């Protein structure tokens, strides 16, 4: 059952990613990316990461993609892609990406045989705090408290940057 769900979700995500690369229409690209994100949320549920799955749907498929669609609609959605690809960059790009993916897979296989099968006793993944969401929240606010605060500062800086960019634009034009 889990295996079937994995393959269905993997097929959906890879198909939507290919559609993202191949579509000329920007709105269809955005919808394809939303498909990828929802499929990945399903994968997170299969992996037992309920909090990440919910955040994936709310933050990525909801907020970020609505922002993308908002900008696409704001700029009118002109078809700027004439041929779909950049000139002369196609086969080198493909070569680079294939080499990168081969390196990743080799690294994953090496990790499979060397590192990742160490003696790890089943630790506090689900059980310590009575649930996945509570466990993640407890880690966020105890062990990862400092990165959590830094993230909020980053969000504040991003907000200020957007305000500054938009304001300068209205003053100049």
């Amino acid at each position, binding site marked *: 059952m889990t295996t079937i769900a994995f393959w269905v979700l993997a097929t959906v995500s890879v198909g939507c990613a290919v559609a993202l690369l191949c579509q000329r229409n920007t709105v269809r690209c955005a919808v394809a990316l939303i498909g990828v994100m929802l499929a990945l949320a399903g994968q997170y549920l299969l*992996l037992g990461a309920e909090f990440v799955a919910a955040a994936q749907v709310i933050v*990525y498929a909801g907020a970020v993609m609505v922002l993308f669609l908002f900008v696409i609609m704001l700029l009118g959605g002109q078809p700027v892609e004439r041929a779909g690809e*950049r000139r002369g960059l196609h086969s080198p790009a493909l070569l680079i990406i294939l080499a990168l993916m081969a390196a990743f897979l080799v690294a994953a296989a090496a990790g499979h045989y060397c590192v990742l099968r160490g003696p790890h006793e089943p630790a506090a993944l689900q059980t310590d705090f009575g649930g996945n969401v509570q466990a993640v929240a407890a880690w966020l606010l105890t062990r990862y408290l400092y990165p959590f605060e830094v993230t909020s500062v980053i969000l504040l800086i991003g907000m200020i940057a957007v305000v500054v960019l938009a304001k300068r634009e209205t003053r100049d034009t």
Partner: protein
Amino acid sequence: MTVPMEYYLGLSTILFGLGALGVLVRRNIIVVLMCIELMLNAVNLAFVALGRNLQLLDGQVIPVFVMAVAAAEAAVALALVICLFRLKGTLDADEVSGMRG
């Protein structure tokens, strides 16, 4: 019956490669940004799969930070795209060659 972690890593690699290919190949700046989001999603999947395999909760906490930083990045990048569009009147990455790139 759980799926082995290597399958998740393979799927993550495929999605990351497709995203990187899109960044290199596509012309539209907005689509390039969407491909960057796809790459970030692939990395998140690798984090969660490895976290489950190693029985560590870090694999589920770090994607939360990745999502927050990706949201900030998307907001700033799209504001820059809007500024660029008002300046140049196009979304074609090849047309924006002020740095001779």
